[in-house]
């Protein structure tokens, strides 16, 4: 019994050593290529979820692809096996070893991985969206080869909340978040401020109850998203702001099912324009509007900056209304022209600083 | 003579063994031809070749005068050869009909045509006196009936040549008689039968001719009517065989095992053994006779500790062991030769060596501080192997599974007797064994008695009980019918008692 295992081991070691032998000879060929800037290769590592998540990963990847097409760059994304720091840095290492020296990582979960990577691969550049590198102690260390990007989610949420209140005029709305992390919280708080702003300035009566503000705890539990949405709709909620990745997909599914039965229910989308996701019949969608972050734009901008030699290494960038980094979609078939105009007005007020949205909880729910 | 089957000079080699060495077997039409040999003599290999499971290395097979090549069982089927296996190949929760048509279902549209199949079975059953009810479930019918279903399976497929592989080993005496009748009617209807067996009595009773093989070599083909049982046995074993074991008078001493009003529940929750009292003294063999399922297994399991006794006492050397663990009872001097050696006696996937220390592995010198001492285990195994003549192709390192049934049983007997137990409980110790092995094991059991130990023998074979026992306890429906001295009784009396008839006073 002992020995058959041993033999298997031996055979394995043999094969393995052959593989090593092969590789060591040709090692200089593929790897040590300090090729010129012209052959910049752009890589991306996905966060939890797939590349076609209609949200964070997809948005980032679209920006990368757009830049790739425009500048003729080779692009590649890798999907890590798990969601630990080790998994992330393994894929970053794979990209770097394969010659991808410009790497975009969407999501706060990459923070500690990028912290290590920026040090270990000084000749590579990193773009971290929604987070900043740190050693695990939340003290930001943004190296010269890294850019950290944040969005003013509260502003985006505010505009969506305002649009929702103006369109519905009265009734209950709800909020479903993924994990209770700052970007999601800021969406929530901004959304609530938008509702309040509408009632104070335009006399709407759209409110949200504490029981209808829920963080599901993950970004991928589709079934839970559906269930939460069903509960809220049963309690009379008319629209739900779902800032929850895959959980939100579940909510959208529930809303679509109800809309088909003739119910008057809505979802407010997140991150990207999710209108197409909510189509249930012909051209009709249950997506009222979406609280967008211009993720694709951010990714594109960074690659463009690198191409032009102005990569803002070491900086933490904030994408806000002021630099058109957030907003609601330009096309909103479910919003009236009047609503669109009022939202645009508010957007400009935020842009020029006459209207300030708070990014902390204050008196708001959760 | 007109042969339906001729296997001429068949030779088959496995690495290191010549399983069949130029064996010739000729089956005449309408005869019952016995194939006799000890376990491992090559009977199964020869029949497997005929059935297409193995290819012979040399030799020819002729069916009704034509040379054939039987490369798989389907061809054998097409040639009208059918086999009734020793272990039935039936689906328990299917009906008789479903089992019989399995694999050759006639269909009507997309549906299986069970109705007409059942009709055909009924006709066949009546014609050969099989008395099989096509609608019953296999799980609900007796072993004898299951065997008849197997026979019907062959008849349904129009088999002309039927091979019976040890057909009586699973049957009660009545069922055996029934089977003989069926075989005769099959032959009368023009079928031909090869009967694989090692039971001389049956051959004498039913076979026309008999081909004997020994260790893969042909010994000869004889006319059964003119050959004595002793001669057949000699041909099979290769030496003179004592048909009855020599046994001196018993010399009983103190009581070793005392059962006192023992009651034990059976698996179904009812009392399988009721108020059973029995003494077994050192220096004697007490036989427990009874028809299967009358409380023997409850009795044995309660004694060795596999089942909890409901009431009563079990005294071993005067000590109540009723609530002791199996292991402690073994330590107190109890040994068991179980009735089902594969299920209870051996760990078939363990080596012979490991099996031979199954009850002592945890004591010195076979282990120390929880570590096995391989050398000591090996020596012990070699000792038992040589003392009890256990033959294993791969020595003590070979898996127990690879041993023949007789050698497996010898290994168990050796292991148990080597414990030097005060009480040896032997259940069906020679079930399924050939003459040579039976004789050997019987001798060992008597030896145990002669060394002043107590032996409790539980057997369904009345012959065995009568041969070995000094006293016979008869059990019926979980109750003790009576105890008789073996020297003062006969088959008839015990037979009656087994049926529940009380012994007349004074006998």
């Amino acid at each position, binding site marked *: 019994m002992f020995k058959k295992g041993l033999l*298997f081991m031996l055979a394995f070691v043999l094969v393995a050593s052959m593989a090593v032998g092969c590789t060591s000879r040709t090692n200089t060929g593929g790897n040590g290529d300090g090729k010129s800037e012209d052959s910049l290769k752009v890589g991306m590592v996905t966060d939890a979820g797939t590349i076609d998540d209609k949200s964070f990963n997809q948005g980032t990847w679209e920006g990368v692809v757009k830049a790739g097409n425009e500048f003729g760059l080779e692009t590649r994304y890798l999907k890590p096996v798990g969601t630990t720091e080790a998994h992330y840095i393994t894929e970053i290492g794979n990209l770097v070893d394969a010659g991808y020296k410009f790497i975009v990582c969407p999501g706060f979960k990459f923070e500690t991985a990028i912290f290590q990577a920026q040090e270990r691969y000084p000749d590579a550049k990193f773009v971290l969206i929604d987070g900043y590198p740190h050693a695990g102690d939340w003290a930001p260390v943004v190296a010269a080869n890294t850019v950290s990007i944040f969005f003013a989610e509260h502003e985006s949420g505010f505009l969506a909340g305002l649009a929702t209140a103006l369109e519905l005029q009265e009734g209950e709305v709800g909020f479903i978040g993924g994990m209770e992390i700052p970007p999601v919280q800021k969406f929530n708080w901004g959304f609530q401020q938008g509702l309040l702003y509408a009632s104070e300035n335009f006399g709407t009566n759209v409110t949200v109850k504490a029981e209808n503000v829920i963080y599901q705890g993950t970004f991928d539990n589709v079934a839970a998203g559906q269930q939460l949405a069903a509960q809220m709709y049963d309690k009379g909620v008319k629209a739900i702001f779902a800032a929850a990745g895959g959980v939100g997909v579940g909510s959208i599914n529930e809303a679509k099912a109800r809309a088909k039965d003739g119910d008057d229910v809505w979802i407010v989308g997140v991150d990207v324009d999710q209108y197409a996701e909510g189509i249930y019949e012909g051209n009709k969608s249950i997506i009222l509007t979406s609280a967008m972050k211009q993720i694709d734009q951010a990714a594109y901008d960074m690659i463009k900056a690198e191409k032009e030699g102005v990569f803002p290494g070491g900086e933490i960038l904030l994408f806000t209304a002021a630099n058109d980094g957030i907003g609601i979609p330009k096309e909103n078939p479910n919003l009236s022209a009047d609503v669109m105009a009022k939202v645009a007005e508010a957007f400009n007020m935020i842009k020029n600083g006459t209207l300030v949205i708070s990014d902390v909880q204050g008196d708001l729910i959760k | 003579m007109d042969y339906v089957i001729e296997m001429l000079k068949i030779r088959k080699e496995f690495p290191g063994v010549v399983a069949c060495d130029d064996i010739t077997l000729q089956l005449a039409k309408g005869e019952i031809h016995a194939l006799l040999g000890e376990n491992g003599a090559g009977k199964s290999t020869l029949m497997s070749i005929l059935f297409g499971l193995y290819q012979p290395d040399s030799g020819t097979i002729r069916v009704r005068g034509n040379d054939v090549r039987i490369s798989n069982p389907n061809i054998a089927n097409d040639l009208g050869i059918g086999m009734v296996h020793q272990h039935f190949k039936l689906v328990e929760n299917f009906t008789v009909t479903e089992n019989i048509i399995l694999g050759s279902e006639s269909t009507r549209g997309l549906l299986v045509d069970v109705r007409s199949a059942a009709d055909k079975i009924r006709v066949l059953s009546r014609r050969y006196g099989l008395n099989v009810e096509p609608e019953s479930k296999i799980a609900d019918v007796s072993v004898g009936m299951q065997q008849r279903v197997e026979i019907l399976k062959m008849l349904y497929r129009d088999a002309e040549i039927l091979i019976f592989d040890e057909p009586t080993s699973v049957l009660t005496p009545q069922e055996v008689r029934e089977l003989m009748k069926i075989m005769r009617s099959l032959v009368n209807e023009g079928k031909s039968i090869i009967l694989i067996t090692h039971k001389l009595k049956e051959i004498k009773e039913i076979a026309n001719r008999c081909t004997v093989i020994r260790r893969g070599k042909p010994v000869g083909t004889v006319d059964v009517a003119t050959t004595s049982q002793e001669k057949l046995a000699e041909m099979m074993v290769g030496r003179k065989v004592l048909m009855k074991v020599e046994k001196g008078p018993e010399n009983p001493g103190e009581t070793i095992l005392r059962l006192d009003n023992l009651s034990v529940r059976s698996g179904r929750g009812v009392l399988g053994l009721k108020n059973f009292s029995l003494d077994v003294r050192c220096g004697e063999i007490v036989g427990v006779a009874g028809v299967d399922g009358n409380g023997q297994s409850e009795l044995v399991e309660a004694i060795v500790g596999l089942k909890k006794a409901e009431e009563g006492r079990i005294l071993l050397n005067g000590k109540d062991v009723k609530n002791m663990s199996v292991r402690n009872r073994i330590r107190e001097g109890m040994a068991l030769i179980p009735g089902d050696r594969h299920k209870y006696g051996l760990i078939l996937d363990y080596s012979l060596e490991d099996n031979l220390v199954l009850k002592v592995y945890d004591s010195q010198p076979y282990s120390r501080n929880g570590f096995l001492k391989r050398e000591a285990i090996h020596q012990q195994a070699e000792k038992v192997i040589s003392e009890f003549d256990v033959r294993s192709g791969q020595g003590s390192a070979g898996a127990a599974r690879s041993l023949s049934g007789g050698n497996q049983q010898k290994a168990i007997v050796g292991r148990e007797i080597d414990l030097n137990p005060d009480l040896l409980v032997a259940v069906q110790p020679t079930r399924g064994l050939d003459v040579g092995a039976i004789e050997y094991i019987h001798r060992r059991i008597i030896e145990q008695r002669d060394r002043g130990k107590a032996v409790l023998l539980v057997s369904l074979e009345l012959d065995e009980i009568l041969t070995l026992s000094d006293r016979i306890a008869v059990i019926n429906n979980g109750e003790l019918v009576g105890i008789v001295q073996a020297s003062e009784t006969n088959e008839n009396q015990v037979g009656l008692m087994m049926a529940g008839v009380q012994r007349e006073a004074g006998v």
Partner: protein
Amino acid sequence: MKPNTGKYVQQLRAIKVTINKEYVLAFVAVILGLLAGAALMLLTGNNPVSGYYYLFRGGLMNVERVGNTLATATPLIFTGLSVAFAFRTGLFNIGASGQMLIGGLFATAVGLTLDWPKPLLLPVMVFAALVGGGLWAALPGWLKARFNVHEVVATIMMNWIAYWTVFYTVPRYFKGPFLETESQRIPYNASLKLNSLTSLFGGSYINLGIFIALLFVLIAAVILERTTLGYELKAVGFNRHAAESAGISVNKNIILSMTIAGALAGLGGATFYVGYASNMQIGVLPSHGFDGIAVALLGANTPLGVLGASVFFGLLHTGKGFMNAMTRIPPEIADTVMATIIYFAATSIMVERVWTRWRAKRGGVR
């Protein structure tokens, strides 16, 4: 002494035959799996030679990657041992994932609670993991022994109990300052990572876990092959009736076997959560428990076989990202290769039959 020598030679020959068979079967399974993968690569229009070249290179090209291969293999070794150990004793432990979670939770709890020097703290953490995993599996063992509840059902249930236990416990007691869904980061003191080891392997994720794994491969092998305990456990596994008749307590051994299997998986949890990773995430049932079944199968349920199979799988896991980065071959191909290998290992009986027939045609083996 001549007959004795003959017997000895005979024994040796018998052993050799079994080695050859098991070794050949595992090897054939691996080869067939690789061939199937090659066929898939061809079908998807890729070059299998370069595919495998980069796959193996990705796992072996430098010390860092060799280290990562070993680090990836470490938890697999433990879950593989766990499954194999239970299997050898006739039990099917499908709950290695849950046992791993609990082992990790126990280790994390100790590591985050006690502020001891590393050499003192680590043994306590490892021991805690062992106890946690062991207890987690002891319960299904007891249920089986006492009520004849099938261990497959019970261990699957326990997987989910473990999942939700972690889901509750981590945010409630070990929450980081920021994230709801992760425990605090394990401090260096409480991590199985060793700076000297990490730098020796060029910043790899290798940690002390691999040494603990090697130790337990040895321990498991010794228990199974050399001790009375192993003798009893296997006896119960092969034939509980015969074991019982020989005075071996079947119930005791079932509980014991499950406990040992669980303890092994628990240790795997420690090496994963405080070695490979640096914190515990909630809402993730590790896949290692199921991979462990595959590893045990391929390794013929022997400890050394498990070790070999784990390292091989670790290699594929580590290398596939690099293959993906260097070629257009989707990473799923590597997963397919693994799945195919498992498939062929599982159907080894079929392979064996073909093999036997082939041998029979050539030389004649029964």
